[in-house]
């Protein structure tokens, strides 16, 4: 099945580059690996026929957020391995606790019965037309409120990064 191979390929790329984000010492490399993760997640959105969200995901995350991260790293001149040596015990504790969390999730999901789509019904829920109808009918107020949130975030960012004048 082609779609299953596609799923496994995208998942492998996503998980592998997500691990490399953590492992790599250089922050610039971490940002680039995170972009790879985001693109594979966008591929998953295409696989799920959520075309609007895939486009928005690429534009917002790879286009805006990661560029912001790269700019900040560039501005702070962090493009080298400056991270001081950390003791090994906190690292071991971090890995162990993440594995325990994973175990809890897997144990929760273990007995669940396998659910598959049997037909292609409702396959167009993620198209722009349907999402736009839902967004501007049922979710009109949250949509407008999110613009207020953006304005507040913008004002906050400008205010915080302004140099204090004495």
């Amino acid at each position: 099945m082609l779609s299953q191979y596609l799923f496994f390929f995208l998942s492998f790329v996503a998980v592998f580059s997500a691990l490399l984000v953590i492992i790599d010492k250089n922050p610039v490399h971490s940002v680039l690996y995170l972009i790879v993760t985001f693109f594979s997640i966008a591929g998953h959105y295409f696989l799920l026929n959520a075309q609007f969200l895939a486009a928005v995901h690429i534009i917002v995350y790879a286009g805006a957020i990661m560029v912001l991260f790269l700019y900040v790293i560039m501005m702070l001149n962090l493009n080298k391995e400056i991270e001081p040596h950390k003791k090994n015990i906190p690292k071991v504790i971090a890995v162990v606790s993440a594995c325990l969390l994973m175990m809890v999730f897997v144990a929760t999901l273990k007995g669940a019965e396998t659910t598959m789509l049997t037909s292609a019904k409702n396959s167009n829920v993620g198209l722009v037309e349907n999402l736009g109808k839902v967004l501007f009918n049922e979710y009109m107020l949250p949509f407008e409120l999110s613009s207020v949130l953006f304005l507040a975030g913008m004002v906050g960012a400008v205010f915080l990064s302004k140099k204090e004048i004495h």
Partner: protein
Amino acid sequence: MKDVIIGIPIQWYIYLSVTLFCIGVMGVLYRRNAIIIFMCVEMMLNAVNLLMVAFSRYLGDSSGQVFVFFVMVVAAAEVAVGLAILMMIFRNTKSTDIDALNKLKW
């Protein structure tokens, strides 16, 4: 693209999201660079987004995808404010190491 999803059980998507989420948690606990911690938080948000899109597609209900849209909006605002705070911290402590902020503990 219409029926390409048939043949993939939703469990696979749940396991993928759980794995990505746990990698994000591990990154938050493992690294001390505040920028990397921010990136791991973004990764966790993305894991949840992926799960919501998968459920929305399998359920045939577009509300989940609208919620993903709002999560993206909040994530963008959060990153803008968070990175501004990070710049301010760097200006005061000359590093992005979170251990330099241990005065916040008490």
